[in-house]
């Protein structure tokens, strides 16, 4: 009997360990410890065993039965851990389903990124109307009468409002800066504001020129500001856009509404400043004009230029977005082409 018990135990151990899944294991359980299982049947044969051996055999039989049950439970846990809800050939490489497929325009995204950065420095966000008068587009910005710059920004004039004095002539704004004067006229200094908006120029379009494009103006006006504070505004913009510090340089530039005026260049992000075809081999890319508002502009806004000064930058958002993503045709921004827009999430 002892041999028989041991051989059944060995057999049970082998079957348990080779069971590949829970149903096989269940069969093993039935075969050994079920009501008709071999160990249960042996138990029934116990009365036939010699009385002197009976307690020992009974004890052994119970031990084995318990051990088998235990092994089965262990094996079951083991199998559970290994098992899956699905068959083993489930294909995890099939593509996922897109969640709600919408998005903000890439220029809106850029604009909001910048707004967040400037707001964290206490700047307000300002917005103004698209149609303005020549007075605000040019006069108040220190553009002398008949100055070439008045027409270098070929302006879209509004029919029926395209002649007469400058306060009567209306146009789609050729730049944002006139709107900044409006802000200053209606707020008390010191000023810290950003002003995103679309501007319009009547020119021939190509991959790099558009009739409608976006500018982002940042202006700070206070007492005792030096023009070097402007670098902080510039670095804020660029580090927000590119996610790290980007070397910038300010060089002499001329715009009627600033004095001194700067062209602001950033290190070419394609070649890292070494020189490449993108930066015309100079290592720098012109990204924005800037400078201290011209005393006449401050006067137009009702401020005393002896008391107040400031710094302004005006960055082309389209250009920045093009650099951020490598977009090579500015006209795509107004195309309303979903094949293009859906790429920006």
């Amino acid at each position: 009997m002892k041999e028989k018990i041991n051989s059944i135990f060995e057999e049970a151990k082998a079957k348990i360990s080779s069971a590949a899944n829970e149903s096989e294991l269940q069969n093993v359980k039935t075969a050994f410890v079920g009501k008709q299982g071999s160990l249960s049947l042996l138990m029934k044969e116990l009365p036939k065993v010699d009385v002197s051996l009976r307690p020992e055999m009974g004890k052994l039989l119970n031990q084995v039965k318990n051990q088998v049950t235990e092994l089965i439970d262990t094996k079951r846990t083991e199998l559970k851990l290994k098992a899956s809800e699905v068959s083993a050939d489930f294909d995890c490489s099939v593509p996922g389903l897109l969640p709600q497929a919408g998005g903000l325009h890439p220029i809106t995204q850029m604009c909001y990124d910048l707004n967040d950065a400037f707001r964290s420095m206490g700047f307000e966000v300002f917005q103004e109307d698209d149609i303005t008068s020549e007075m605000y587009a040019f006069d108040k910005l220190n553009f002398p009468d008949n100055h070439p710059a008045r027409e270098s920004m070929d302006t879209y004039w509004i029919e029926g409002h395209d002649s007469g004095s400058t306060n009567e002539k209306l146009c789609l704004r050729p730049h944002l800066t006139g709107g900044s004067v409006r802000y200053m006229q209606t707020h008390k200094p010191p000023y810290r504001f950003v002003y995103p908006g679309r501007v319009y120029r009547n020119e021939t379009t190509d991959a790099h020129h558009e009739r409608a494009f976006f500018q982002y103006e940042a202006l700070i006006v206070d007492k005792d500001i030096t023009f070097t504070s402007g670098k902080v505004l510039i670095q804020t913009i660029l580090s927000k856009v590119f996610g790290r510090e980007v070397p910038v340089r300010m060089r002499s530039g001329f715009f009627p509404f600033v004095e001194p005026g700067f062209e602001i260049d950033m290190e070419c992000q394609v070649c890292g400043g070494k020189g490449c075809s993108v930066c015309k081999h100079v290592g720098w890319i012109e990204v924005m004009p800037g400078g201290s508002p011209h005393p006449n502009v401050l006067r137009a806004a009702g401020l005393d230029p002896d008391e107040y000064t400031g710094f302004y930058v005006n960055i082309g958002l389209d250009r920045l977005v093009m650099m951020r993503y490598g977009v090579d045709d500015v006209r795509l921004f107004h195309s309303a082409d979903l094949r293009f827009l859906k790429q920006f999430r």
Partner: protein
Amino acid sequence: MKLSLSWIKDYVNLPEDTDLKQLAYDLTMDTVEVEDVEYMARRFDNMVVGIIEAIEPHPNADKLRVCKVDIGDGEIKDIVCGGINLEVGMRVAVSCPGAVVRWHGEGEPVVIKNSKLRGVASYGMICASDEIGLGDLFPANEEAEILDLSAFEVPAGTPISDALDLNDVILEIDNKSMTNRPDLWGHYGIAREIAALYNLPLKEITPFVPDVASDFNVDIEDTDRCPRYIGVSMTGVSVKPAPYQMQNRIWKVGMRPINALVDITNYVMLATGNPTHAFDATQISDHIVVRRAAENEKLLLLNDKELELCNDDLVITDAEGPVALAGVMGGAKDSILPTTEQVILEVANFESTGIRRTALRYDNRTEASSRYEKAIDPERCDQALALSMQYFKEIYPEVQVTGFCDKYEKKLDRAQIDVSLTWLEKRLGKHLTNDEIENKLGLLGFDVTIDGDNMHVVAPTWRSTGDISIKDDVMEEVARMYGYDNFEATPFTTSFEGAINQKDIDLVRNIKEYLAIRCGMQEVYTYPWMNDTFVNAVLQNTDGVLKLSTPPAPNLSYIRSSLLPNLCEAVVKNERYFDDFSIFEEAQVFYDRDYSSPYDATESLPSQKRKIAAAFATGTKKIDVLFREAKGVLEYMSRYTHMEEFTFKKVEKPVWADNVVWMNIFVGDDCIGEMGLLSKKVSMDCGIKNLSVILFEIDSTMLKPLISRTNKFEHLAEYPETDYDVSMLFDVNTTWADIYDAIMGPKKAAALLKDAAFVDEYRGKQIPAGKKSVTIRLTIGSEEKTLTSQEIEKVAGQVLSKLGKKVGGELRTQ
């Protein structure tokens, strides 16, 4: 503007080892933007002077010859050539393998390789002038004429760039960066700036001293418009080519050599920035008068344009009438003719804005007008005169000055500015010593006297025509001479009065993010002008719609009064690629009415409103599904963007909308927009093929942002609530609003009824004609106990009976 480095070096002694990259960098940083530095010789790499030793016929082609060409070091090469003027002994330009040429001066650059031409091996090519970019310097008389360099007596094998003196460096300056610096328009001006930047001596131009007494006279009638006019009459000149050196320089900076007389005037302009002009003296009757033109006076220009002048134009005249448009262009009759032997040289100064008006008026901008309109100082005439006379004497040794007149009626005052040193230091953010400041300004030609805190600055004449006029200008000069790179960024300090709180700005952003991120819509941008097709289809009426004077295209003249036409256009564009999409745009719309003067009383601005509009387009969903999606976007907008809720009423149908599917959108009593299905007719007029389109447009300026998030916390139900669905038959004209109102309105159907929700609507076979089945989900519950099923049934019964009485609902039996 292009500048020749060798020409600049005529006036400033740049050390031989000057790093040109550094020079370009310094000019860019401190003065003007150098866009390009070109080593000109590189254009002529692998091109040498060859001497033709023999010419043999080509075995397989009548028009080709095989030339034996000495290309130096005793190497004789076979070169196949089709030139018509080939001669033994001729010096020619040979492009060896590796040289870059353009076939016949046109098309893309081609790299020369060893090749066979009609079966004969050819080493490179013998070039025509336009094939190696020298067409303007050596114009060919006929096609297929080879560039004959025999006049340049150099040995065979001499690089072309050495032979033709083309080892120069060309600096290309961005014109925009120097519109405010008239003094820099010319080689001398740039040389003067370089001299200041590097503290190098500048070569003075020796003034011309006339030694002629004559009655030659010039009258200036308008001295404001013509502050100075120098006339020099000369004999002993003729029309002949200028010396090669002069032609070479004129050509290198982008102009065309013509003949010596014209070239001298152009050369002097390129050197000094002051335009000059030469008249054929025999064509000038009596003396020169500078005056305003009479109305409708006529003038035929050098370029054969016949002008009808006006009183604002300044003209140079003789006894018979205008001979030149002052500062813009000479007249056809009086300019240099092939027979010219006597000239009158004009070296003059004209007022900038007048020249500019005239040049623009006749769309006739020239090298001269573009310089005068920058405002040149009248003292510069002295340099232009001196250089002109120097070259006349060099080129025409027999020249005689027969008359001279310098009318200088309006002298220019040097600009004088007082600057406080304290102010200067504050604005610079850096302390500079008085010596440093004096030194920097002194190098630029400013006279500086410092008395205590006050610095008195007198600008040089060449900076006094408007460029330097206020103390900020002086500060800029100091800062740029010191070097902008040498100023460190100073953080600005600000006082914060409180958090930025801009509800209206935030609301629009919240809405845009809600539409894009929560509703899965794509934001688009379109232009502010509308296409006539979509204006006619969607708006159907252009009363009060503003127009552009000069639109981008004739059919794009209307400025948008609604965002919908352009959105419909966007739908059409995208229909090719997508059959189910939704887009939105946020932008301003304009109307020729409600003019206001928010900032300046003299200004009057039209109605400008901000709108948000959307289009839901589908070719795959049914209209009721599309409608509910679109309406859901509007209904839930307030909840996610923190503003007052919308209500919907049918008050006035939008013209573009379907007769049934439309609603007006309200906030309180204000109608703030509309939504609806684009009618079939409008859809077809737009060119939409298969899509159903629902549009909405709301006025974002009329939305009311909530002061704060105002929804209140509600306690979680303590006792379970039960959802109880009922399906009832209603008349098809009974709306959900009627049904909802009947049970949830002021007289609620049952106290324990918490809510009633629309589940679905069904019309079909099992439903009697004129009826529809609506499934309603009732939420039933009590705050005091768990309801028994009898109690729940009782509430449901009350609802059914109320619906029966109020809106004719019958329980669906089957």
